[in-house]
């Protein structure tokens, strides 16, 4: 079974530039999550999709972050413009559903450095 695929693996940009991350979840998984993991902290949920609809984006900085999940499959997370404090690992995860007993499968993440 293929896992959650993310690209790119690493990205270095200057502040005020824009950047986009891509995630391909496990086939058939209805729920997709984007997490931000700042160095020394636990992952923080940015946005959660159920199919192609947004379930929770309460912690997404909407003035600069946006995300979409076209056709309920792949997802893209964008930052525009980036700030120094956006330096982090961005993790994508997917699960079959939204209930607590659904196991989350995580990708390897995209490590973003904003200079």
């Amino acid at each position: 079974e293929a896992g959650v695929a993310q690209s790119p693996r690493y990205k270095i940009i200057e502040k005020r530039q824009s950047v986009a991350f891509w995630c391909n979840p496990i086939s058939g998984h209805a729920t997709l999550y984007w997490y931000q993991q700042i160095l020394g902290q636990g992952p923080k949920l940015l946005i959660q999709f159920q199919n192609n609809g947004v379930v929770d984006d309460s912690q997404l900085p909407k003035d600069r972050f946006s995300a979409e999940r076209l056709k309920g499959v792949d997802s893209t997370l964008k930052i525009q413009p980036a700030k120094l404090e956006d330096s982090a690992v961005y993790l994508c995860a997917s699960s079959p559903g939204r209930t607590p007993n659904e196991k989350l499968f995580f990708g390897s993440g995209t490590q973003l450095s904003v200079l």
Partner: protein
Amino acid sequence: AQSVTQPDIHITVSEGASLELRCNYSYGATPYLFWYVQSPGQGLQLLLKYFSGDTLVQGIKGFEAEFKRSQSSFNLRKPSVHWSDAAEYFCAVFNTDKLIFGTGTRLQVFP
């Protein structure tokens, strides 16, 4: 607000020694609790979870955790650590459709 606390930022043990990683939660009802492991450059992998029933749960890679309601704790244990266990460990609680993670404990294993 529901939260998860991992008091130990960094733990170092010798290979073959026993291990206990601490996790405390703040939650009104019976929580859904999880332990995840993150190896360098890898995504998070579920070790074990607790929903209800037996308070001692077994996970993968020889790990176990015990839910203690009186102490609001869900500590992770392993009787004999292997060098490959060196990683970052995260405790998490499920709250209204999302996982809330602790800040993590980095485990270092010396030969």
